[in-house]
């Protein structure tokens, strides 16, 4: 073993030193002569004193960070206040739109909901004003209004569809909310998620309309939803929230197909011959 020692020493001396320094007290009296108590540390104390100037500048930088972060925090609070107003407005609007499930849709019903659209437009104007204070940071705070905006879009598209039978496009949605400025626009992904939410509403609508006696409704809804689903398949989605919502859309489609099938098989459709192409596809 003796001949191994020098090589071992050279290779591992760093390791042994650290180990012995940290974990063992060397008992060898030979070293007692060179024992210089804490002299090293007193000198290092001096170095910390030297570094008091950088420590000051360190403090200064972090102080600046703190004020900047606090500023963005207050901005965020202001945004959240507006967003919570948007949310409560949306809830009012939703409550009035939900009446379509109770009976056939009436113009008065839309009037009531449309008042809320104006309120929403004002709120989004407020939000845009706040964001004008920090240009280019739309996406920094995006998460604060994201889900609320998605529900707003779903509401708008649903209403638009009820009225016109068409899908409200992104641009039209932006116009309705007055979001056509460069600084504050409607994020396309938010719009698409909103459209997916809207499709979730359709199965229930179909069921209730049929119950209320509108037997042609399933055909229309099925046609629209089939188109919408096909259009969504044009998108190359990532594995994100939108993808998940889109995947859920096929269940809405299936439910509507089932309702249509039920109505058709019992001969309840107004006149069986005039059923459109899309409808026949969905039925089989």
């Amino acid at each position: 073993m003796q001949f191994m020692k020098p090589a071992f020493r050279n290779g591992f001396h760093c390791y042994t030193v650290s180990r012995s320094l940290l974990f063992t007290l060397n008992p060898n009296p030979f070293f007692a002569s060179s024992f210089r108590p804490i002299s090293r540390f007193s000198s290092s104390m001096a170095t910390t004193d030297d570094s008091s100037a950088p420590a000051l500048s360190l403090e200064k930088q972090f102080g600046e960070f703190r004020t900047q972060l606090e500023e963005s925090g207050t901005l965020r609070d202001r945004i959240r206040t507006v967003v919570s107003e948007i949310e409560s407005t949306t809830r009012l609007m939703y409550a009035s739109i939900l009446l379509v499930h109770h009976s056939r849709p009436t113009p008065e019903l839309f009037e009531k909901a449309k008042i809320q659209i104006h309120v929403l437009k004002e709120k989004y104007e407020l939000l845009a004003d706040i964001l004008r204070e920090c240009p280019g940071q739309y996406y920094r705070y995006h998460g604060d209004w994201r889900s609320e905006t998605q529900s707003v879009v779903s509401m708008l598209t649903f209403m638009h569809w009820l009225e016109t039978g068409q899908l409200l496009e992104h641009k039209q949605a932006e116009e309705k909310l007055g979001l056509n400025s460069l600084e504050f626009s409607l994020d396309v992904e938010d719009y698409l998620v909103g459209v997916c939410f809207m499709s979730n509403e359709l199965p229930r609508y179909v069921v209730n309309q049929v119950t209320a006696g509108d037997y042609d409704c399933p055909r229309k809804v099925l046609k629209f939803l089939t188109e919408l689903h096909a259009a969504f398949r044009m998108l190359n989605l990532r594995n994100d929230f939108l993808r998940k919502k889109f995947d859920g859309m096929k269940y809405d489609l299936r439910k509507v197909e089932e309702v249509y099938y039920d109505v058709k098989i019992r001969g309840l459709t107004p006149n069986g011959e005039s059923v459109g192409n899309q409808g026949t596809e969905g039925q089989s």
Partner: protein
Amino acid sequence: MLRITVSSSLHRLSLFMASDKPQRLHQIAGTNFQTTTKRARTMTTATLTTTDSAMKEAFSKYAEYLNNLNDKRERVVKASRDITMNSKKVIFQVHRLSKYNKVEVLEKAEKDLAAVTNQYVSRLVKELQGTDFWKLRRAYSPGIQEYVEAATFCSFCKNGTLLKLDEINSTLLPLSDPSLQPLQINILDYLLGLADLTGELMRLAIGRISDGELEFAEKICSFARDIYRELTLVVPHMDDSYDMKTKMDTMLQSVMKIENACFSVHVRGSEYIPLLGSNDPSSFLVGIPDIEL
């Protein structure tokens, strides 16, 4: 149902072709890209019935938007990964320093860091314009954090002070076109990078103690403590403080490790420290019993 699947797969095929082309061309020339998308769009609508073409038209716009966004995100993620990898190399290079080769090692590290800045960070700068800076933050944040870590680590070993955010940002200024908005690292990424720095400082401190550079270790200790203390005040104000809170815990661990190491040397090690500096470790090792090895 059969007809649906046939038409949809046809559809998907045409879409696939449509979406594939612009992706490939779009890096070659912007003008080419424009025309291909137009052609692609007419191609898609040609296969469809006319009733729903308006919806398809709108959706092809969204598809184009999403494709561009995803491509960009992918490029940013790649750039970020390259930055991470190469910044790590810089950090390893700094760890190679010892008492005798400090100057050369740090010179090399600085050169490597400059290469990271010029080669990889500049790629990010080109991608992140306007709102993308915040929109894609999640895609590039890890790389920037690592870069901040490497830059501050390097600078601490050289100057013994903290490299400030302004200083890092001023090195990034020349990378971007003067007409464009320059990329500036934001406070959040800087702070997240600093939080990681303590881990490296801990490793460095332990290494320095083993090497007998106790003054340096003490300096690292007080530096790490300062950073930790300052961060405790800032963290509650950060946007996504969850990430940062876990980092603060590990940070405290690191700081305590450095303190404990310094403590051990302080209490027990002071006897043989002078010998470590004497360039003759063998004479000292003779005294260690075999069991220790």
